[in-house]
């Protein structure tokens, strides 16, 4: 009897060990590095490092940035979500895709686009010379907040939109029947129902902002605004390096994120309502007047212009400019940069490396992630909680912390497993970072499967593996594919991991672009950026086509 138990639990235990090695060990290494100085536990000195005025400034900067980005993206996301969920604009489903573009654009490229657009003698001043130095006002804290909000708002918007769609019209109508005006209904019915979802969205935006490296690195550094990620990166890559310091900063960052998660959990638990039930409900619709409609479209156009128009105009035009010194001028355009890109082996190999990393990490994540979810569903007690918790941990933590941990940990065990300094360590790091995506997509696919289907399979004599292959797997395959696609897109453009642990001679798309920005030609970097966006968009379109067809079949 006991033996059977062991056999049954073995896969779970193995998975738990695997996840511990991949995720927990690096994290523990970071904490250890922060408190162990010169071979002994030295909490006093660790505290001294943390409390140094420079670090306190960095922490305050990060928190301030996080709060402001949450506020600013709320201002952009809430009206847009409302328009897309509840008005006539809802029927234009292409708007959903359009609003995903800012999120798909690598943030370091978008912010570079903004810089080139707004800087002195930049594209804006070349287009509108009459405005004088007005656009240079962009280079301040507000500009940084704007650019970062424009990247993350689609996230919040999609979440709010889905939540709004789930609020049945009956609730609001009953409010109206009892004589509540529009404003009162908004305040007392609509807003409370959304609070739980908003808390989740706001928290994700906050954590994403704290973990974001690309924008603070390009734009923040320029205005002298240093945050966690830029400091951690600097301490670990520019001589004199100081891993102890980046580890202690990382530890603070982890603590902040954990506290935020607890707060969010609390808010969401106190404000969650069962809105989705088996009963049919119809979503509420607000009919906009003609003027309202014009206003709505103007708002959407404004958001699209700022979130997509400006950066893309800047990226594309820069990739076509021949001589940077003459800017936008007739005769100063060329396709040479693209030609150069497609003929230099270094550029091509960086594209292949990125594709390899994206495909392999997405595939490995899909396998491990699905196994984890399957195990979690079968496991009980501690095992279940531990598996679930650890597998989702990377999403709650800024990626730079995990990457530093992976660096330290794999360097420490280099004698045992010489994986560091090979492309293998990159695959490993990507898998660690993106595992939560698969876990989440597959979990949500699982929840839609009715247990009676599986029971029917067993009743008709299918072995567990047969039932898994022929019933479960086909039903969760869409979730796996969606997770795969998401990972592919994000891994393809990953910057901070690649710039920290890529072995010598290894450039990926993001580091290639960064290198061109810093040491080569900006135009070449932008041409690569355009190519990168084209590749991911094509992949997404193909994916949508394929899954769309499956649905039809």
């Amino acid at each position, binding site marked *: 009897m006991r033996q059977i138990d062991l056999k049954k639990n073995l896969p779970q235990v193995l998975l738990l060990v695997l996840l511990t090695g991949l995720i927990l060990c690096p994290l523990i290494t970071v904490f250890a590095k922060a408190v162990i100085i010169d071979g002994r536990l030295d909490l006093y000195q660790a505290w001294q490092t943390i409390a140094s005025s420079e670090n306190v400034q960095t922490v305050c900067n990060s928190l301030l940035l996080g709060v402001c980005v949450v506020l600013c993206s709320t201002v952009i996301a809430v009206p847009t979500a409302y328009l897309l969920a509840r008005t006539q604009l809802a029927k234009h489903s292409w708007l959903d895709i359009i609003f995903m573009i800012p999120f798909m654009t690598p943030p370091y490229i978008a912010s570079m686009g903004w810089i*080139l657009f707004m*800087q*002195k*003698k*930049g594209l804006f001043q070349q287009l509108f010379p009459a405005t004088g130095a007005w656009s240079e006002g962009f280079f301040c804290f507000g500009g940084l907040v704007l650019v970062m909000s424009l990247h993350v708002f689609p996230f919040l918007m999609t979440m709010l939109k889905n939540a709004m769609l789930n609020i049945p019209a009956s609730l609001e109508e009953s409010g109206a029947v009892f004589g509540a005006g529009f404003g009162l209904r908004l305040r007392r019915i609509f807003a409370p129902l959304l609070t739980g979802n908003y808390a989740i969205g706001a928290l994700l935006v906050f954590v994403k902002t704290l973990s974001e490296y690309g924008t603070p690195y390009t734009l923040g*550094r*320029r205005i*002298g605004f240093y945050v966690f990620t830029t400091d951690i990166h600097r301490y*670990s*890559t*520019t*001589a*004199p*390096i100081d*891993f102890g310091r980046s580890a202690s900063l990382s530890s603070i960052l982890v603590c902040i994120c954990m506290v935020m998660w607890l707060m969010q959990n609390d808010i969401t638990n106190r404000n969650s309502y069962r809105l989705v039930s088996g009963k049919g409900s119809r979503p509420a619709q607000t009919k906009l007047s003609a003027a309202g409609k014009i206003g709505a479209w103007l708002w959407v156009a404004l958001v699209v212009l700022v979130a997509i128009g400006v950066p893309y105009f800047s990226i594309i035009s820069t990739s076509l400019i021949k*001589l*940077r*010194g*003459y*800017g936008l001028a007739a005769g100063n355009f060329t396709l040479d940069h693209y030609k150069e890109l497609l003929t230099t082996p*270094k550029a091509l190999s960086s594209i292949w490396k990125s*594709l*390899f990393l994206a*495909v*392999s990490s997405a*595939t490995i994540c899909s396998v491990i992630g699905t196994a984890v979810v399957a195990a979690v569903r079968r496991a009980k007690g501690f095992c279940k909680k531990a598996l679930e918790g650890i597998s989702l941990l990377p999403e709650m933590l800024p990626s730079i912390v995990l990457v530093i941990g992976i*660096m330290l940990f794999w*360097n420490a065990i*280099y004698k045992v497993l*010489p994986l*560091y*300094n*090979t*492309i*293998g360590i990159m*695959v490993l790091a990507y898998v660690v970072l993106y595992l939560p995506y698969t876990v989440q997509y597959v979990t949500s696919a699982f929840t839609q499967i009715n247990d009676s289907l599986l029971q029917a399979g067993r009743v008709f004599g299918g072995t567990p593996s047969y039932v898994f292959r022929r019933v479960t797997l086909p039903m969760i*395959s869409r979730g796996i594919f969606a997770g795969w696609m998401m990972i592919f897109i994000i891994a393809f453009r990953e910057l901070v991991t690649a710039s920290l642990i890529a072995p*010598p*001679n290894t450039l990926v798309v993001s580091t290639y672009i960064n*290198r061109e*920005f*810093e*040491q*080569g030609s*900006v135009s070449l970097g932008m041409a690569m950026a355009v190519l990168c966006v084209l590749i991911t968009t094509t992949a997404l379109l193909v994916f949508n086509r*394929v899954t769309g*067809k*499956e649905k039809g*079949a």
Partner: protein
Amino acid sequence: MKKSIVCLLLALSLCLGLAACGQKQSQEQDQTPQLSGKVTVYMPSPAGLADKLAEAFTAKTGVEVEQFQGTTGEILARLEAEQANPVADVVILASWSDGLSMKADGKLESYTPAGSDKVNKGWIDSDNTLFGSSASAVGVIYNTTVVPELNADWSDLADARYKDMIAIPDPEKSGACKDFLAGLVTGTADGESIMQSWADNGLTVPGANKAALEAVTTGEKGILIAGVDYNAYSSMAKGEPLNIYYPASGTVVNPRPAMILKTAPDMDNAKAFVDFLFSDEAQQLVADAYLLPGRSDVQCENRTNLSDIPQIPTDWAKMMDVASDTAAKLNSLCK
């Protein structure tokens, strides 16, 4: 339909997986000593030159060159991070003082490269550990559409006429700029106050060498202080509206030291690579990249020659001591 997609994906991931295995295998083979088929070189920009040198060396000797390209700061950081398991054989830095501090740490192998008798005086140190196979000098680079004519000396650049127009490469990233500042502070009487006066005049630090030059090329800034000359010459050759001069009170010519690490996994290849750096072929590549060649008998036609550049008297030992602090100080002044 679904099956074929699954098959396709599986096949794709299998192919990529195999490709990765192949890669790993070849790396493992390379690490075994008897196969000494490669040399690992860490080189700073310009990337084009590094690639060409690597290519020419492979063509000549059949030894593969694994290179890591980065700024001086990144290379040093990488070396530090890899201390436990050294990977690099040869390191080239863009800063003589950083080379000297590596020597002081006892990391360098002594060697006399072939052709060392023709090398510029002082470009190989007395212990034969630093080999200056090329050099850059920093100058003042200006955008001719913003400032048509310029010949101001270092201290004149603090003039109100140039308020908010001046930029400088990040000395914590650019070795050349770091050494220049060290030279300015140690070699002239009022170096520190000149730095301060630039900062008061709105000096900005846009990034490493190329990023700083970019700010001047686009006209965002008008004047780049301590810009490395080879970047300017190559941009000017492309037709960008730039010009460069060396201020009259002198600048720092910075030999870029190539060094063999004591921990080099492929010592013989490392020595062969250093020999190659002083060959006619490599020196010509250096000159073509608008850098100053390390051998005195190689002249350049596309840029100012070494003898025509006014120089600040340099005391490298002193400069090495203050270089990092000066760099950090400039950055904090401009923050």
